[in-house]
């Protein structure tokens, strides 16, 4: 799994042609809302459940 493969997969998932240029100052102020974090955690847990269940 290379760095390029991860980047290309992410671009494909977001339907983007190139990596977006984001303002660093704006990013530092960005807060992840609770519902977004909950969605992320749920996906993480689901993929770990698949992992522990095996084939």
């Amino acid at each position, binding site marked *: *799994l290379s*760095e390029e493969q*991860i*980047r290309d*997969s*992410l671009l494909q*998932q*977001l339907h983007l042609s190139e*990596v*977006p240029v*984001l*303002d*660093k100052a*704006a*990013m530092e102020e*960005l807060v*992840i*809302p609770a519902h*977004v*974090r909950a*969605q*992320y955690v749920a*996906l*993480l847990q689901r*993929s770990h459940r*698949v*992992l522990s269940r095996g*084939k």
Partner: protein
Amino acid sequence: RFSQKFQEVAGRLLASEASRHLLVFGMEQRLPPDSELVQAVLRLFQEPVPRAALRRQERLFPRSARARVTVEWLRVRDDGANRTSLIDSRLVSLHDSGWKAFDVTEAVSLWQQLSRPRQPLLLQVSVQREHLGPLASEAHRLVRFASQAAGGSGPREPQLELHTLDLKAYGAQGDCDTEAPATEGTLCCRQELYIDLQGMKWAENWVLEPPGFLAYECVGSCQQSQESLPFQWPFLGPRQCIASETASLPLIVSIQEGGRARPHVVSLPNMRVQKCSCASDGAPVPRELAP
């Protein structure tokens, strides 16, 4: 005939008069748990046709002395309905006799995917006319395969030959030994591989979570089978150590929307290796069975 759009077409039904045999193989314990099926061969003994019958057939139908033999896997569904899958079909000559081999690997692979307790393996063998039509040959009536002798096993009864590989020697070895680094002689295993997203320049300010993840990779070599199989699959490559099961990776990324950045959850498929296996490129892949 019920459609307004098409003109009615009259047809004639030409009976195929197939003869059908159902072969039942009790398969439990035939395939050891730590083994991989490489090939399954059904062997049927074609009985010789009596000379007089052969001469009569040649006189009546001088052009065709062949019949079509079809092998299907028969599955009895939970609701009692029968479902057949075509496994092999070929023409056999009336002049032939002796053992005929059919590649039934797909049937056994499909049977292995049934939920337990599994029904026996059911193979339906039918002998049909080569062609349909008023002047079609009757050769199919003369093609006969030896069946199981009553009360015991005969030398010519149908046989199912299973070629397997012991996965302890020929399969992947689970997770690699973290103490010993993988070398050329290492057998196929899953090795830890940490992907540091924070260290990637392009991910800066874009990927918010996670800072990195354990992706794993498949390393090492696979032992090659030296056995000469009855059916040589032309496109089958060597056994290679590959990721046979993968999991997705959720990420929180920032996306630009209406002039401002907003966190967004995205899931990237096949980013983490769950299982490594030794597999040949070109080998039949077991399919998901519909209920």
